[in-house]
């Protein structure tokens, strides 16, 4: 097929054969082993659970609008905030970027046809849904009001958490299998020439996340198992009445859950590295620094979990050691932020929607990271632990970090996944609303927390009433913004216009295949010969086909190079 040069303004010819219409019918989707389709199915389920979790969050904030009862009583409120926590953590944010964007892009970005174990990939999708359904049953049947942490004496003596612990146990397996799949794929299936230093930084993020998933998730598996044993056969290692120790449960729980927060943020950092490079059209500043800091975070994150338990009755010796190492894990994050800002230096910054989300990420994640440094100090944490300061901190890092990066990545790779471009102004309005709503909601909570407002409180002292009101108004704006973003994507599916292979001028491998990509990603296994963000070399690619024989070239927007 010869290649025609497309002048700007001319409509792009639609691609006839691609992974979406390779096979037809629901059955072909449900039994597919194509990593791209599994990625799309994960995307839909992840957005679904995000909607459920988000709705619960709106109810939580509505209840806290005024002191005393606003719309529900204490027991219901406790169940709603627990469900919000569990759905958001286990069913949305852990699988969000690695399972949807990661699944779709990992094989294409390393020039492979599929992940190492495609059937295992489909199996982990169904295990994820088994966990999801068990979770919903758990929420509806049992009165799980222990929060997403299921702390020991309360969760094993008073309420029925067996369904929910089973759901977390099962969902954990899906996370393990995805991690395992990704580690083997990155190790064994890279295209010829794709050395470790030519791996895009998004894949370094996914690789570090996969390692944490494989190493940490089994421990939440055994923790949930022991919790069920505690409840069903009264094993007694967590229940103080039988001689057990609730602090031991917290050790078990946080050994997984702190690395889990790095499972949530590392893929987001990977997405941001990609966005910064493409939209500043500048080589990433300090590629090795970012790649190494991802690995450093992955390893050191296993040594710091004790900072969740400074006031939980832990010994001072352990508290001091945990606090010291917690500060060490803050340093690589600082390097990443500095490198991203360095990438923008002397770049050519185009403020399209993905780049706006990247800027929002930098703004919000910096606040999240710095308040993490605050919480790491021992004596300040005694005052701030389990208050709204902690709530604000982890929302700034998880929502301000991972969700914003997820939206940015989604806008960035949407043309590649669907072949259609989203409406630019609609996306910008959504980003603006989200940014303002987010800050009004959660920065207020920093002040609430440092003033002493405890976490998970259904009713509060009247002094905090006006701050809570601000926070609730903010949550409405934030909810509206997310709704507009959702509409923007649906609108683009219906009316978005066709795009070429590389609408953004990206230089990583996925921009060299068609969009939407072919069922087998590449016709010929690509030969990688340069760094992922080498824009000078990339220009020649856009004209040549990189195989050195110029046989078939990608239809490109002719860079109107006069």
């Amino acid at each position, binding site marked *: 097929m010869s290649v025609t040069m497309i002048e700007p303004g001319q409509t792009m010819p639609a691609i006839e054969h691609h992974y979406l219409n390779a096979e037809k019918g629901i059955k072909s989707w449900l039994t597919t082993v194509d990593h791209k389709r599994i990625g799309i199915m994960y995307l839909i389920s992840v957005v679904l659970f995000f909607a459920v979790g988000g709705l619960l969050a709106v109810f939580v904030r509505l209840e806290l609008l005024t002191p005393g009862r606003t719309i529900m009583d204490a027991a219901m409120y406790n169940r709603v905030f627990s469900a919000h926590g569990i759905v958001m953590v286990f069913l949305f944010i852990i699988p969000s970027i690695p399972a949807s964007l990661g699944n779709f892009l990992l094989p294409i970005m390393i020039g492979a046809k599929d992940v190492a174990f495609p059937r295992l990939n489909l199996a982990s999708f169904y295990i994820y849904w088994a966990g999801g359904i068990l979770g919903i049953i758990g929420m509806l049947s049992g009165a799980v009001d222990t929060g997403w942490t299921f702390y020991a004496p309360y969760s094993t003596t008073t309420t029925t958490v067996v369904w929910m612990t089973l759901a977390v146990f099962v969902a954990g397996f899906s996370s393990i299998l995805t991690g395992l799949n990704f580690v083997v794929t990155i190790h064994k299936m890279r295209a010829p020439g794709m050395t470790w230093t030519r791996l895009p930084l998004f894949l370094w993020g996914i690789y570090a996340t996969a390692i944490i998933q494989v190493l940490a998730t089994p421990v939440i598996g055994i923790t949930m198992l022991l919790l069920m044993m505690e409840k069903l056969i009264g094993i007694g290692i967590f229940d*103080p009445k039988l001689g057990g120790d609730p602090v031991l449960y917290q050790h078990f729980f946080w050994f997984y859950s702190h690395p889990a927060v790095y499972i949530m943020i590392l893929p987001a950092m990977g997405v941001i590295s990609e966005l910064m490079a493409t939209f500043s059209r500048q080589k990433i500043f300090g590629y090795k620094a970012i790649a190494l800091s991802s690995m450093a975070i992955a390893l050191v994150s296993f040594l710091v979990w004790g900072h969740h338990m400074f006031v939980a009755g832990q010994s001072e010796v352990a508290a001091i050691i945990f606090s*010291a190492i917690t500060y060490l894990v803050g340093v690589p994050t600082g390097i990443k932020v500095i490198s991203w800002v360095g990438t923008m230096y002397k770049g050519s910054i185009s403020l399209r929607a993905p780049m706006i989300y990247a800027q929002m990420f930098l703004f919000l994640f910096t606040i999240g990271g710095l308040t993490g440094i605050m919480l790491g100090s*021992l004596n300040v944490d005694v*005052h701030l632990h389990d208050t709204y300061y902690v709530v604000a901190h982890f929302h700034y890092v998880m929502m301000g970090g991972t969700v914003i990066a997820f939206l940015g990545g989604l806008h960035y790779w949407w043309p590649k996944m669907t072949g259609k471009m989203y409406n630019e102004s609609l996306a910008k309005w959504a980003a603006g609303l989200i940014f303002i709503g987010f800050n009004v909601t959660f920065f207020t909570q920093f002040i609430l927390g440092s003033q002493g407002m405890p976490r998970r409180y*259904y009713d509060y002292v009247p002094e905090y009433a006006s701050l809570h009101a601000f926070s609730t108004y903010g949550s409405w704006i934030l909810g509206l913004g997310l709704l507009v973003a959702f509409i923007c994507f649906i609108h683009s599916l219906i009316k978005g216009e066709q795009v070429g292979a590389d609408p953004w001028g990206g230089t990583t491998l996925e921009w060299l295949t068609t969009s939407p990509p072919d069922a087998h990603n590449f016709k010929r296994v690509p030969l990688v010969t340069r760094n992922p963000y080498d824009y000078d070399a990339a220009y020649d690619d856009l004209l040549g086909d990189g195989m050195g024989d110029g046989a078939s070239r990608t239809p490109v927007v002719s860079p109107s190079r006069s």
Partner: protein
Amino acid sequence: MTPKHNNNRTMIGVLAAGILAIIYMIYVMVAPQGGHIQGWTPRASSTLAEGTDWVFNFINYWNYLFFIGVVAAMGYFIYKYQRKSDSDRTEKVKDSIAFEMFWVIFPTLLVMVVFVLGARDYMGQRVTPKNVYEIQATAFQWGWTFTYPNGGTSDSLVVPANQPVRMVMTSNDVLHSFYIPDFRVKQDVIPNRFTYVWFNAPKPTLKYNRPNDSTLTVSSLDRKHILHCTEYCGTSHSGMDRNVQVMAYNDFETWLEELTKVDESAEGGKKVFESKCQSCHSADGTPGIGPTWKGLWGSNRSVSPGGAVPADENYIRESILNPGAKVANGFPNAMTNFTGLIKDGEIKAIIEYMKTLK
């Protein structure tokens, strides 16, 4: 092709949104909110608070510096390096190892300094000074009982002024946490184990209400010092807010005496009801977690095990000291047993009070 989006207008919009957010943050930080909340930390009312606030502000100022630095750099780069046309070619920026090393060494040193400051002050908090005044606190599902050395028990915490006080805490059922924001102290309370926290509150609270006064619905709390429970412990976890008063010595002495006197009249019973029983039982017939007391005295109670039992003197006494023995049908066996938390005089007072509730 994609409509030509106006890079310039978007850039202005982005900078405006950033500045707007910062303005809101400054407003929330400084504007007084409801009553007297202003700035970051509540008013320092214990000797520990000053150390915590110092480290808090130290880290906060560094946070402001880094945050403004990052945001200013971003804003400037967006403005200066705008993309003119799609075919811009940027010049190569060399990775400077020195810059990277700086951003490894300098933050590491800075955070180590912050760590040492925090750890030193923390150790000061953990090691208890000499001649300390010990109060035993027992947390139970949705309330506190403070036992003073002279045996008196109170529902809200009263501490002598300018005297180091050590709370000796344990819990009756699940995890709770003893947290007084104004004193900057917090410590989880674990069942079947003692945990300790000490503080010294120099300044007496201005208005004292009557001893054992715990007519406290949360909204009526007078802003003295508030005690929260910060470890989730069940349905009315937020109902465990209590009043903390600091009394100068003479008043504290009189208060202690009055504490041990138990008036066994119906009036005394009403006070005991409000301090200990109100969170689950009601006196006017409205359904609660536990059975209502209206018309309880002398009626026939259907309980399991044991079928029908007259609600007489020893039924009430047994249901207080060992609620699990006879559980009223239709109600959960969730009542904590009050042995050691309630004095005999108070049980008599409760029974008198029940008699008045027809």
